[in-house]
């Protein structure tokens, strides 16, 4: 199994509070991703990183920010949590983006509930 951990695994928070989720990898992979998974929507990309301090937005980035100060860590921050951000969040990593490969390996997920 790819060495990916996410913390916390579960969190309950209140509307308006900031929340930070952490993804840690031991594979030294260049690319890291944050997705959210919701019923009826599947997996949607929030942000991704293509190197230390290099990040870009995905399709559902509003209300989220990310940081990557080390190869192994990718942080997702909800600046002011809302109920619509209740979801399961997955981190993924991939080693390369050659024209025909972007095989991603996923962490175990963080279940976030915003009350």
């Amino acid at each position, binding site marked *: 199994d790819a060495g990916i951990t996410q913390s916390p695994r579960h969190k309950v928070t209140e509307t308006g509070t900031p929340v930070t989720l952490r993804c840690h990898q031991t594979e030294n992979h260049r690319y890291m991703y944050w997705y959210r998974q919701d019923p009826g929507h599947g997996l949607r990309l929030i942000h991704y990183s293509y190197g230390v301090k290099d990040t870009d937005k995905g399709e559902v980035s509003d209300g989220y920010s990310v940081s990557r100060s080390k190869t192994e860590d990718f942080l997702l921050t909800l600046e002011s949590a809302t109920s619509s951000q209740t979801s399961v969040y997955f981190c993924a990593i991939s080693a390369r983006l050659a024209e025909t490969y972007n*095989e991603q390996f996923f962490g175990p997920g963080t279940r976030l509930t915003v009350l």
Partner: protein
Amino acid sequence: TQLLEQSPQFLSIQEGENLTVYCNSSSVFSSLQWYRQEPGEGPVLLVTVVTGGEVKKLKRLTFQFGDARKDSSLHITAAQPGDTGLYLCAGQGSGGSNYKLTFGKGTLLTVNP
């Protein structure tokens, strides 16, 4: 925007039956991946198909990439309860979008003993 339509959305069958899951798009993908996800866990990569018309087998699972690289199928022979899970297809963009995987919404398979 690239979209991937998966069908069926839900599938409940008896042990020993065969089944096929479909993944269709109007867009061309440079590669297509299939993942399986169990409750409370992250998706796990099963296979990547790259060439139009390619067929890959993984024990009782057969994966096919369409000739035009717009669609794919997953066929399971003699399904077993251990095959139960959410099956996701994901297409890789090309060129400047090759960082991106577009996921289908998944097929939830239940195999009853």
